[in-house]
């Protein structure tokens, strides 16, 4: 090797200084008072425009106003969220790199055999930001006006009623598996790449029903092309107040919603997590955030970080049971 050029030596010195500086800041970050002292990175497991990206950008904008530090949204789509999960789990646990955590984080614990980042236990929850109901809708020509009538129809023609769901391992997909297991009906379960083509197929009538997140189905429910039979949440959705919940429709133990929130690497110090939780809760309570998020079909959540940890653990357990019971083979 030749001797380093002056420029290179200079760069090395600079790198060392930067490293020292970042270590110094990270060390000081444990005191919540001066947190955050640097830009915050929100890693979204989605392309620009995907639902976690929209959440991150909306919340990020108001968080920026509040903490007077830039909030940068970084898109790491793909690999069923695992690429983003891995990146954040391995980031410095200083509260400056956060994950937009979605149901996929909990579901992947059981959907994948061996996650290099250790699954959902590799994260500490900061706050649950939103929840969104799942909805069972049928094409308006299907002669079923309630969940009971739909199940009767499916029992009369076993395996013939086609239900479209978004990709394997999404909440809609698992919910359809769960529905068959709970009620014993046999449906023709057809998987699409995402919610939009599944909904389109239900609109054309080639499939009779679709189980998806409420937001993308909402315009078609309002136009009358699709008929909503039930929402999956414990309470009715303000967007479609006339649609009963699954519990009201007679489905026992069939209450769930999809959620999104923010999580940090597991080793992040508690004072930093508390400071972040306070900032996020203040942002989520801001009416401007609420208006922007409600327009996306999200129900704004908020709450303690312990509650979010509990939700992630409960979802991981619930969907784990479904995945095993429905005999969905984990991916290596």
């Amino acid at each position, binding site marked *: 090797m030749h001797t380093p050029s002056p420029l290179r030596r200079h760069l090395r010195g600079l790198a060392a200084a930067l490293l020292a500086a970042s270590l110094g800041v990270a060390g000081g970050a444990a005191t919540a008072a001066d947190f955050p002292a640097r830009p915050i990175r929100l890693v979204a497991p989605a392309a620009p425009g995907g639902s976690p*990206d929209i959440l991150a950008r909306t919340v990020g904008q108001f968080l920026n106003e509040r903490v007077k530090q830039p909030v940068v949204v970084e898109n790491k789509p*793909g690999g069923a969220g695992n690429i983003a999960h891995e990146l954040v789990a391995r980031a410095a646990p200083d509260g400056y790199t956060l994950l937009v955590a979605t149901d996929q984080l909990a579901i992947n614990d059981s959907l994948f055999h061996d996650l290099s980042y250790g699954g959902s236990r590799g994260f500490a929850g900061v706050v649950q930001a939103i929840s969104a109901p799942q909805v069972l809708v049928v094409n308006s020509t299907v002669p079923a006006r309630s969940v009971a009538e739909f199940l009767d129809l499916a029992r009369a023609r076993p395996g013939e009623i086609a239900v479209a769901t978004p990709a394997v391992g999404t909440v809609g997909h698992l919910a359809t598996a769960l529905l068959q297991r709970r009620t014993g009906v046999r449906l023709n379960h057809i998987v699409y790449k995402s919610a*939009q083509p599944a909904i389109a197929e239900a609109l054309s009538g*080639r499939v009779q029903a679709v189980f998806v997140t409420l*937001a993308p189905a909402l315009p078609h429910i309002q136009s009358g092309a699709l008929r909503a039979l039930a929402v999956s949440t414990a309470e009715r959705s303000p967007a479609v107040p006339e649609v009963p919940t699954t519990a009201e429709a007679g489905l026992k133990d069939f209450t769930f919603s999809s959620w999104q929130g923010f999580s940090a690497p597991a080793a992040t110090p508690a004072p930093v997590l508390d400071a972040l939780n306070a900032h996020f809760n203040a942002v989520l309570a801001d009416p401007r955030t609420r208006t922007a998020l409600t327009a996306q079909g999200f129900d704004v959540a908020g709450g303690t970080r312990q509650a979010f940890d509990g939700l992630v653990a409960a979802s991981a357990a619930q969907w784990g049971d479904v995945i095993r019971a429905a005999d969905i083979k984990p991916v290596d």
Partner: protein
Amino acid sequence: MTDLFANLGANLGLGLSVAASPQTVLWCLVGCLLGTLIGVLPGIGPVATIAMLLPVTFYLDPVSAIIMLAGIYYGAQYGGSTTAILMRLPGESSSVVTCLDGNAMARRGRAGAALAVAALSSFLAGTVATLLIALFSPSLTALAQSFGPAEYFSLMLLGMTGAVVLAHGSVPKAVAMVLLGLLLGLVGTDVESGMQRFTFGIPELADGIDFVPLAMGLFGLAEIIVNLERGVAKVDDVAAIGRLRPTREEMRAAVPAALRGTAVGSLLGLLPGGGAVLSAFAAYTLEKRLSPTPERFGTGAVEGVAAPEAANNAGAQTSFVPLLTLGIPETPVMALMVGAMMIHGIQPGPQVMTAQPALFWGLIASMWIGNLMLLVINLPLVGLWVRLLRVPYHLLFPAILLFCAIGVYSVHNSAFDVLLTALFGLVGYGLAKLKCEPAPLMLAFVLGPLMEENLRRALQLAHGDAGVFVRQPISLGLLLVTLALLLGAVLPAVRRVRAVAFAETDT
């Protein structure tokens, strides 16, 4: 009929009143300009351009934002055609076809003519498609919905059969390239079962190989390696730019080709979920079939530039119909547009046309304005773009490599994709040495996964009954056309041997 035209007037009037307001024209212009400037950087196609510029639009009101995005899209798409023609660097699937004859024209010193034909064909197609949408939007949606999995499968089969026609030269090699493309298309997560195929435990491969690294590697990088091998002597060839404007004969060949391309593109663009990717390929195939001198294709036939460019632009236009009325994105670019609309609080769906007529018709009118601006921006710039070819290779190649790396990285923020591009560059060099053409490979790579998904879904919906493909009239029709295409390829060979026996089938 009078109602139809009265509506057309009212709707386009509303649209123009939105789109022709100084503010929206400004945003459209800014979008077109940004899109062209970034899209013309070698290696950065529409997907990368929109992914990069999307956040810029977050600060505008919804109508301006969507119109600016549409401008970026058209600009980037034209910019992508520019690099496809000048440097053989396709930024998205449709420009792969433009590479074939556009780049061949550039090599023959007709780069200026190829660029001008591309711009004029795009404008012609854009104008016709805009009128079509304004006239028939509601009924077009119904047509789009009549396409189910069985119809898609048959359409893809037809497209795949056409793929062999794309290649000039050895048919066995073209078939081998199709098979290789199908294999590469298999990589990723199986939609039906969620199982991973050929991912080797690499999470970046879980969603399959992306189109951009494959196209950049096979076309762009491979081209650079081949040129390096040929040495510096090539510079003089390319630098001979020749007359910038198309000749009279070129125009005479280009106009009917552009019109046919417009028809093909407008139809295929309507089909949600995969029609648009076919349009440029289909238009090229059609031209080659109709041409009395098909052997000119691949060596710089002007029809081979006009038809796919027109089809591509017409398809881009009409694909807004399923996007706006059904909310189904057809291409990665459209998926980004859906995301952008949602960020601005617009949920794509049937209500957009009625609930937000200003947005809907404004967007349609802005399409036409966008096309006009592209023409205004780009025709004077043709000379400038062509002069890029005069940049010495020792400056041009490193710059192309750099921009390719940036472009590929910016699509998914993935360094893995950059490595993949380098790998496919080497593969592309190997293919060039073996005289195998990458275009059929690309088509099979794009269509294969769609074909598999729709085949399985059609069978699943029909409870395993394969008869579904011949019972649905549209599907049957497409299969018959496929059969005719196959016979057309086989018959001439047979006819030479048994001319008399086949005399009746000719009539």
